[in-house]
């Protein structure tokens, strides 16, 4: 399935500065694996060392949180939009500190 992955502002630097990436995947897990294979720097921002999605990063298929669908196994249809939505803190930077 061809799906669209929306990359949030804080992570665009690790995804070739793109805001959306089109790729082929039949599940959310596959989409994220394909994405991080293409942009390897993204991997540590999305996944913890144990391979689980980081708890400050949410993933949605269209408008639904995958935690309430089938998580990684959530199936994708042609034309679905996968959104990566990390927590953001404020105007000073990703973690509130500017340096």
């Amino acid at each position: 399935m061809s799906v669209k992955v929306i990359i949030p502002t804080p992570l665009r630097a690790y995804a070739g500065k793109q805001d959306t990436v089109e790729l082929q995947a039949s599940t959310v897990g596959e989409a994220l694996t394909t994405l991080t294979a293409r942009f390897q720097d993204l991997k540590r921002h999305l996944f913890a060392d144990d391979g689980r999605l980081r708890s400050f990063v949410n993933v949605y298929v269209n408008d639904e949180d995958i935690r309430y669908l089938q998580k990684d196994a959530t199936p994708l249809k042609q034309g679905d939009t996968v959104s990566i939505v990390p927590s953001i803190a404020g105007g000073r930077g990703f973690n509130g500190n500017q340096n």
Partner: protein
Amino acid sequence: MATKTDLSPARTTVALSNEEVLRYSRHLIMPEVGMEGQLKLKQAKVLCIGAGGLGAPLGLYLAAAGVGRLGLVDFDKVDLTNLQRQILFSNDDVGQPKIEAAADRLHGLNPDIQIDRHETRLTSENALDIFRDYDIVVDGTDNFPTRYLVNDACVLLGKPNVYGSIFRFEGQVSVFGYEGGPCYRCLYPEPPPPGLVPSCAEGGVLGVLPGIVGALQAAETIKLILGKGEPLVGRLLLFDALAMRFRELKLRKNPDCPVCGNHPTVKHLIDYEQFCGIRGEEAPAPQLGVPEITPRDLKSRLDRGDDLFILDVREPHEYQICNLNGYLIPLGDLPSRVSELDSSREIVAHCRSGKRSAEATAFLQKAGFRKVLNLKGGILAWSDEVDPAVPKY
């Protein structure tokens, strides 16, 4: 049905003066607000956490709308860099406590309302006491510890939390903890660990963005007070100013949420700095233990004609603001571009404040570079100690 009870607020002790009727006439002639709604606004008590980018439009619109009691929590002073977006303040306010400048401005806008000044850092010790007096809390903070503190305190006290958050040109808005709806921890159970980039170089904010997001928070606050419309509960609104696009995602209450779930484990306020893992983050460079050079020492060595290679690890757009004529390789590109550096030469790495270049120095040491120094305090310290003609940003 228009019955006597519909008119009752007008007969209570709270009433509008003739001047207030005129002031709020554009509200009063709308059926969604009307006299009843305007009196609700007058009796409402709203607490704004932070008098910054989000707090500015919030404070202005809530004061203008006639919210009877407006609490402000902030302990900062107005800085020149605030004026690009914090429209509560003027040039003359630079150096003044934000709370004073904000209260003066809001009082000037609407002398009929009460403004409570809480000039303090919000902490686990004082949050519940401060929050208790208010009906609604509006979160205009800029950091994770305070955001989790505000969320937990609101859940514990059963108060709605009107949330807004911004990053560069993107914003998030929602209403948490309202009538059994989800809370911030349902959305994000844990904060990101500090130091996990996107780095400081990714920071910054489009000045108008907090204006839009703060105004959305003000609209939600006013709707909650009026009890009108559909509050942004169970919905996360995303705004992208660059694409000029709003999107809405479903936000569910997490039954396992540690604060508002079925079996809460957080029953009192905790240490949020520790929760967010940012104790001692202020001084990361010494923790890395990399060799340093002070701006003055660098200047005298350059004047002496020593062969030093200046490596600037900031972003290209920062180089355009000011530079020390160094060789630019952004920190994120360093691993792939390390071959451009000559390990036989002595390298002085610098960034804006010395933090990124400390990471770069540590990285280069690991990569086998023997002669690498970190410019202590970065280009900011260079401006302070060596050349004030170099602008600080």
